[in-house]
């Protein structure tokens, strides 16, 4: 009994250390009073946390990342909700194949997706890097959108729509008046998941960067190659807080974990 509780605590302790440890290191490394990225920090100060907001390129790349995450996710939902609906409600020929293709961007390693988009979209078709980034992020979010929305559609009986039609709705009205209000939790969950996925995306974006067009994580990488100061750690900590806050709020408001 004693042994068992000891090993339980040991496993729990190790797990938490590996999960939360890096996060704590980052928070403190960013709060260093010294000039280089180090742990333990040389004294404590908030100057690097403040400096983050003054770096010009961070501001531009943050806006780009925000744009990709918000607009890309909305775009993916605009494609994904109807797709999930169609896959759910109709017996489509080759629906398994469609599901596989939709899921492909998360199965294929990001490096390959990024390289392929660069080689076959940007170079031959003269896509701007920004457009390619937008496509890539939309495609990466799409699988989550389809999946999460599908699972909430599964819980919705189709006779509800038939009832709406018999009360005078067109099929389209039935979708907006009856289906959408009842899957809004799933749609919001998909939005948050898509947002976080896009915002934290590195491998695909790595290939799709150009002069002045960098997502925040990529910008942080290149910043670190030149300037090895604690501001990157401070920024990472801020971003981690943002993600945690979003997921926490979502969980509180609509039981986010039910959908994921």
């Amino acid at each position, binding site marked *: 009994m004693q042994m068992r509780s000891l090993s339980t605590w040991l496993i729990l302790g190790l797990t938490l250390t590996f999960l939360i440890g890096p996060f704590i290191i980052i928070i403190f490394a960013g709060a260093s009073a010294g000039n280089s990225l180090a742990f333990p920090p040389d004294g404590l100060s908030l100057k690097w946390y403040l400096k983050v907001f003054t770096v010009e390129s961070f501001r531009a790349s943050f806006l780009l990342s925000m744009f990709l995450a918000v607009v890309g996710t909305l775009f993916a939902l605009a494609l994904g909700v109807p797709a999930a609906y169609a896959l759910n409600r109709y017996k489509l020929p080759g629906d398994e194949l469609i599901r596989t293709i939709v899921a492909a961007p998360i199965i294929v390693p990001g490096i390959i997706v990024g390289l392929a988009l660069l080689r076959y979209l940007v170079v031959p078709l003269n896509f701007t890097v920004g457009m390619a980034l937008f496509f890539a992020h939309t495609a990466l979010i799409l699988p989550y959108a389809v999946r999460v929305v599908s699972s909430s559609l599964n819980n919705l009986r189709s006779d509800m729509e038939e*009832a709406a039609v*018999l009360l*005078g709705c067109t099929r389209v*009205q039935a979708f907006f008046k009856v289906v959408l209000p009842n899957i809004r939790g799933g749609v919001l969950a998909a939005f948050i998941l898509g947002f976080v996925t896009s915002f934290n995306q590195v491998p695909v974006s790595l290939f799709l960067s150009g002069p002045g067009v960098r997502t925040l994580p990529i910008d942080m990488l290149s910043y670190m190659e030149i300037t090895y100061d604690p501001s990157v750690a401070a920024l990472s900590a801020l971003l981690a807080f943002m993600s945690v806050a979003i997921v926490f709020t979502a969980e509180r408001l609509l039981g986010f974990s039910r959908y994921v």
Partner: protein
Amino acid sequence: MSDAFVRLRDLTLSYGNTVAVPALNLDIREGELIALLGPSGCGKTTTMRAIAGLLSPTSGSIEIDGRDVTRLAANKRGIGLVFQSYALFPHLNAFENVAFGLRLQKLPEAEIRAKTEAGLATVGLTGFEARKPAEMSGGQQQRLALARSLVMEPKVLLLDEPLSNLDARLRLEMRTELQRVQKETGVTMVFVTHDQGEALAMADRIVLMRDGKIEQLGTPADLYDRPETAFAAEFMGFENILRSEGRELVSDQGRVTVGYESAAPMLAWRPGAVEIGSGPLQGRVIASSFAGGHREYVLDTALGPIKADAPVSIPEVALGETLAFDLPEGTARPLFA
């Protein structure tokens, strides 16, 4: 029949290449409460969905109130349907569920309010306006679904297995409720059921269906007392059906000689029509159960198992013992198909 309100002509319904209902003809009168009765897979629900417009017929036509609606979209037909699962809108409260269809018609708010309140009152749900469907009992949900359809003043109200999700007590209550609403509103009602008891108790006329075809159409008394086919007889509780050949009764298990010759090729007896305690036939009791007013026996006979009800005045016969019985011609229902 010239007074048909709903008229199905050679209605053929299929799923893919499977024909579920081949060339159905049926006339339903205005204000009638009609039951589509049959075992699962007999085409009753399919037929109902076609009347509602949720399923397009392969061929044939549907006429409602003198108008051909075969190609008319479901949302333009003016038909109500109470789903087996009720299909209430979970995100709307009871009031908004009932007002849903009225709002689509863009009626003035005061009229919507008045009609919705009246609809809720008809089904006894006044005071439940603010409840969500999930906060209501099965019986209340059922009545809410009914009110939601009724406020639209449908030409025809369809009900899919309206009592199947209710417990026994509520089922009885809802039966009376449905009949009352039908009499009050005068709406033509078509309900689908697999339960002959429900159909017998509620319907003005019963359409007994089998394999997409009408097996028999008639009043409850017609079907109960005068089934025309072996299938109808069996469905109506004639549990002993035997072939009649010369002066013999024949089953797959064997044959016995009786003292009469029937003109019909088959004869059917309810368990209560079998005479027990005396008679030329013998059976060994293999099951016996007390059913209040009578005792139900299953007898192992030369014809296979025979079900017989004995009045309680006859002393109980133990399992394994032999009992004399008779299948009299006078209590038999002759069947010609």
